[in-house]
């Protein structure tokens, strides 16, 4: 009998999903078998980075063991194999995002670099003194700081769409900020600190009504549900591979071809040129124009394997399971006396941020760690969100489809233990 992964069609579109069974799925993730401090690992820091399925680990291993060569240059068998694998991964990303063309998929180091690329190659060319960029109050620092740097350089203004106490994006406030000086809107698809799924369709439509391009930070979205960039119609969409069960150090920027073609290169170097003389260099077409230097080849190929793996399960099945688990976790954690939950938006992805009365989040994390439970504490690279809710830090449990209700029960028992220690 063929395995689920072997049943995948080569192009990743015609897929026969395996039945969703979390215990079966957990078998695919070797790290989930390990213990921490003598207890089974309960990994609930998936919004920071996700664990890797065997298929991704094997793919990266196989690349180095059997196919390693530099790409886009060697006229020999191995280089052709490596190039093919890397470019196949680009096509997998294209289909995963439902982008019109693989030319619109740029490999970067991370979503951070994807945003910086847009700042550098699009923002710098487009923004002038007095122009405005709109972000939201729940952006990750990676979608704040690059814009601040650009605005400072250009004398432009950064406008921030506020959120309400539930962590909802306020569309009417956003409407008020849009004006003739707005040159770009850059909004997260899912808040890493609050889990809020933002109304990206409306955000994009409202911007387009005024012919303003939109960048969506999809780092926390693509691991949880199907994203279709044509349906969204955004100009740019970025995400990181390592949060999508792929390797670290690889990210994606999708951009509409007509915009990418009009943008100057990102970095100069090898692989991004058509011809070089000391008088004039002619740049390569997109996406190569933005990919100077030898890239993170095994990262790209590993990301392709992660996408194959996810599509073997199906993003719909993943989302349905995670939503059920999130509802269970929100109820269970929220019911503990003294717990305050941050982020109660109507539409949420797998994030439960909380505080416990009288106990600092850092102490919560240390005590949970002794129980084998990994959660995040601190400001989650979203200090403005902490400020919005008037706390220096939060504790955050974030879910993946390999987490179980039993693990949520372990988290709840762990929080009770925290209360015990602090009497």
């Amino acid at each position, binding site marked *: 009998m063929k395995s689920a992964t072997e049943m995948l069609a080569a192009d990743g579109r015609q897929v026969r999903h395996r039945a969703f069974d979390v215990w079966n799925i957990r078998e695919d993730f070797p790290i989930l078998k390990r213990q921490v*401090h003598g207890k089974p690992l309960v990994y609930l820091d998936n919004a920071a980075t996700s664990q890797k399925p065997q298929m991704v680990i094997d793919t990266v291993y196989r690349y180095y063991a059997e196919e390693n060569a530099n790409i886009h240059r060697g006229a020999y068998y191995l280089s052709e194999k490596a190039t093919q694998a890397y470019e196949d991964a680009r096509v997998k990303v294209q289909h995963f995002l439902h982008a019109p063309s693989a030319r619109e998929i740029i490999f970067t180091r991370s979503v951070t670099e994807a945003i910086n690329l847009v700042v550098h190659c699009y923002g710098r060319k487009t923004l002038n003194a007095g122009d405005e960029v709109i972000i939201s109050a729940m952006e990750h620092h990676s979608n704040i700081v690059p814009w601040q740097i650009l605005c400072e350089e250009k004398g432009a203004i950064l406008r921030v769409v506020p959120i309400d106490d539930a962590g909802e994006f306020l569309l009417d406030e956003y409407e008020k900020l849009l004006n003739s000086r707005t040159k770009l809107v850059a909004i997260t698809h899912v808040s890493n600190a609050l889990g809020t799924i933002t109304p990206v369709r409306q955000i994009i439509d409202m911007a387009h009504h005024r012919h303003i391009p939109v960048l969506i930070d999809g780092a926390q979205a693509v691991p949880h549900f199907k994203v279709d960039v044509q349906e969204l119609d955004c100009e740019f969409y970025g995400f990181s591979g390592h949060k999508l069960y792929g390797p670290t150090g690889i990210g994606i920027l999708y951009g509409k071809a007509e915009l990418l073609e009009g943008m100057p290169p990102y970095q100069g170097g090898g692989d991004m040129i058509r011809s070089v003389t000391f008088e004039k260099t002619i740049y390569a077409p997109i996406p190569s124009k933005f990919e100077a230097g030898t890239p993170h080849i095994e990262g790209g190929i590993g990301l392709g394997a992660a996408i194959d793996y996810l599509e073997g399960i199906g993003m719909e099945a993943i989302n349905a399971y995670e939503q059920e688990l999130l509802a269970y976790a929100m109820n269970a954690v929220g019911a503990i006396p003294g717990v305050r939950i941050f982020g109660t938006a109507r539409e949420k992805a797998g994030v439960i941020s909380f505080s416990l009365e*009288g106990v*600092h989040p*850092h102490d919560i994390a240390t005590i949970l760690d002794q129980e084998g439970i990994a959660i995040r504490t*601190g400001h989650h690279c979203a200090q403005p969100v902490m400020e919005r809710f008037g706390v*220096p830090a939060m504790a955050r449990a974030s879910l993946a489809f390999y987490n179980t209700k039993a693990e949520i029960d372990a988290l709840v028992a762990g929080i009770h233990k925290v209360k015990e*220690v602090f009497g």
Partner: protein
Amino acid sequence: MSDLRELYQELIIDHSKRPRNFKVLETADRKLEGYNPLCGDKVTVFLELEHDRVKNVSFQGSGCAISTASASVMTESVKGKTLAEVEALFEVFHQMVTGKPPAAGNAPELGKLAVFSGVSEFPARVKCATLAWHTLHAALQGTGETVSTE
């Protein structure tokens, strides 16, 4: 749980819930802020010196149990000591929480500070235990900038 009890000893829990010398010191002639960007902990140390002696010391801020208790016990431990004695105490304290063997010779007695010995088993928490100390150290050196653990 034994490691946890080692870290969260009763004295630490007590000082974290009811920190001593937790106030603005009106008579302070030095004041310095410390910040741990990793967890957002902030501490402000107020220092009143008389010649080369700590006449009075207090702190304010927000932080985890370890950092609050460490600042609290620190203020109790350094009051009345000379600057050289405070520096020597910090060195021994630092060696203890980072798990380094104590230096030979006549090192100062840690007293209550010994309660933080469990921190050495929790490398992620060393910065919590030393934030107030680093801030005090910088205040004694007279550098007027915010101290960061990073």
